[in-house]
Every structure is written in C-alpha cells, then in structure tokens.
C-alpha cells in the first residue's frame, strides 16, 4: 500500500486529463492523474502510482528502478495484483 508502483500512461479515455489508462507489467487499469494536471502528462509517460492515483512523473529508468525494488522486496506480484484491483478494476478503456 505504501510502496509506489511504476506505471506507463497508455491513453486518456475521457479526453480530459483527470483519468488515464495505465499499464503495469502488462496489466492495464484506469488510474487517476488529476494530481499531475499541472504538468504536461502524455501517453508513453511514466508515473508512480499510490492506491490508484499517480503521485509523480518519473523517467523510464526510474520506473525500472522502482520495479526492481518491488521485486527485491518480494512485492512485485502483490503490486500487480493490486493493480488488477482485486477484481474491481475497470480495465476497458
């Protein structure tokens, strides 16, 4: 819950910049990107997710680093489960 999960922005399904579809290790789900509204977030950008919300924009290298940390801590699988949203996540764009 407290460790951030890296995700890549795929698209903005609503046409606004509050909700995006993001991908984590092949799993896609809707995430809230409202907190990054002030920056120029675009498809292909990487973000750090906390409980479904993008909290900061990061580089691809930082995303890789964060995924490695989750793997080293044995939490990568749980992170992907979380992103699947325990069955509640709406994954369709």
């Amino acid at each position, binding site marked *: *819950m*407290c*460790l*951030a999960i890296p995700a890549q922005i795929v698209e903005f399904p609503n046409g606004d910049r509050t909700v995006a579809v993001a991908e984590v290790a092949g799993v896609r789900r809707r995430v*809230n990107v*409202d*907190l*990054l*509204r*002030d920056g120029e977030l675009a498809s292909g950008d990487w973000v*750090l997710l*906390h*409980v*479904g*919300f993008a*909290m*900061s924009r*990061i580089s691809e290298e*930082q995303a890789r*680093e964060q995924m*490695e*940390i989750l793997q*080293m*801590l*044995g*939490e990568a699988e*749980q992170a992907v489960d*979380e*992103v*699947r*949203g*325990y069955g*509640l*996540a*709406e994954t369709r764009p």
Partner: protein
Amino acid sequence: MKYVDEYRDPKLIAALAHEIARIADPARTYRIMEVCGGHTHAIYRYGLADVLPGNIEFVHGPGCPVCVLPTGRVDDGLAIAENAGVILACFGDMMRVPGTKGTPLERKARGADIRMVYSPLDALRLAKENPQKHVCFFAIGFETTAPSTALTLLQAKADNVRNFSVFCNHVVVVPPMRAIVDAPEMQIDAFIGPGHVSTVIGVKPYAFIAEEYGKPVVVSGFEPLDLMESVLMVLRQLAAGEAKVENQYRRFVSDDGNAAALRAMEATMQLRPHFEWRGLGSIPYSALGIKPEYAAWDAEVQFEVPGVRVTDPRSAQCGDVLKGVLRPPQCALFGSVCTPEHPVGALMVSSEGACAAHYKYAPA
C-alpha cells in the same frame, strides 16, 4: 552478510560500508531511526544491519499505517460494518489486523460484508454499482494515501454519491517524529526520513528536527545503496557536529512536495486535535479528520461509532517495539504465540511491520 551477493552494486555497497566504518566513532553508539515501514522492510531484506559496524543501530520507527492504528479504531471500523446494508471496503493490509473480536477477514467469514479494495476509487465505484447499499471506505495511511482519499471525497461530492462514506484514519508523519524526540526514553541520534511520504509533503516539514532538536534528517530512497548512502550522510553530519535536513532521494522527491495533493487534502480534511497511536499514545494534531463541509461523507458523523479505547494485550509489547525501546525478538510473544500466520499484534501483520520483517529475514 548473506544478502550481499544479491545487491546490484556489491562493490559500491562495500565501499560505502568501508567509508561508514572509517568515520564512525568507535567510542560511541549511533541510534538511527528509519521512520518509514518500507525502509524497515528493505533494511531487513538486504540485511543492512550486518554490513554496518556494530555500534550503529537501526531503530524501527512508526511509519507502518496498520501498525500504529490502535485496536479501538479497528473495532470502530468493524462496528460500522455491523450496520444493515453496509459494505466496508478495506485495503488488503487491513484485512488481517486483529480487533477485539477478530480481524476484518474473520468478521467477513462470520457474515459481515467486508471487501478488499485497491483504491478508494474502487470503493466509490462499489457504491455507485450498489445503490441499495452503503459503502464505507476504511481509510488508513500517511500522506502517501491521504491525497487519494481526499480526491475520492471530492469526486463523491461532485458526482453526488450519497451512499458512500469514509472512516478516516489518515495520520501525518511529522507529529510522531516530534513525540519520539520529545520522549525521554528515546535516544535517537538521527532520522532516515520517509521517501514516498516526502514526494507529497516535500522535505521542509522536517526542518524543526534539525533546528530545534539538533538531530540530522536524511530523506532516503529504498535501494540498499540509497540506505547506505543515507547512513553515511547522517554520520558525516554527526561527525561535523551539524544538524540539517538532506535529501538523498532527490531523483524522486522535490523540496516542496506535490502542491496539488496538499491542496486536495486541505480542501477535504482537517487535523484532529488528538489521535491515539498504538504505542505512542495520544498525539496532538497527528491525524486527519473530514471537514464539516464533507460531513455527509464522514462515517463518524453518519454512523454511531463506539469510540472505545482498547488497551493492547499486556503480553504483547507492540508499543515498546514501535517506539524502538524493545527490539522485536525481545517481546515475549515474538515467534511463539505471535507469528505472521497468527498475528497477535499489528506489527506482525504487514510486511512493513518491524516484527514481520524481523521474523521473515533476521537469522534465528
């Protein structure tokens, strides 16, 4: 040294360990508190305590949200779930935290409608999909998760979702740090500051620890290399007789934090005059409640919440472990009665809890 082979940069780790040993004063001890539970997990996972000189001790801090939540609040949340037509939505970490009459998972098995969610937005969606039910989200966490709850409240109001509420247990990280430096039995020389919380609040809120208490604070990342470098930065400050706030995790953490996240919290939440912490007791202005403008979504307004203060079982010494007075194996229940499979105290539940991390990684 058993984990050294797994480090990505074993040579750099060895070089840092060498430099730390070189500047550490053998005539004194160093007690460095890592505030964040993620750091606690990482320190155990990497076996970092074994790489450092024996007179440098990591003291595990209060930065594990389920660990610091007192039993009374768990009971309060479960009492809300007993109301007819209520679905209680919890993060996975909460499901195995013991209340007086069982964990959320056990209560679910006995018929309460308790569901695990990943995000508060999933709880809000659950409310929209079940208009005949009321969905209460059991909100926990420091400033890493509080903005998410805040945005969900804004969304609930904007969408006028009336069958949704938040049982707010969000806490803030700075007041317990003050409580720890104020406690006479706590002899902490320096802090390793939390990484992800600081992406939200920035590094300036820690300034008082350096300025008023003369203790170094280094905000750190989670890699072994980050943590070792942070220890070295702490030791350099102490050796030079300095106390300042440094940001080792600059690649993720800006000095000012995330202004939009802080604005969302400000719009929907306010500091409670008092909040009870497991082990640390009542700390003023250390937790967030929901603002009166959002009372329609505040579970503590919408439901009768017992609000009973429950003392921890006398035999479990979670409080002393949380304060760093006892190390996990010094608790009488550690590893015998209290294990990750059958946790008596919350510190054995979460992977970020000092007891769970010690049980899993420390040599027997």
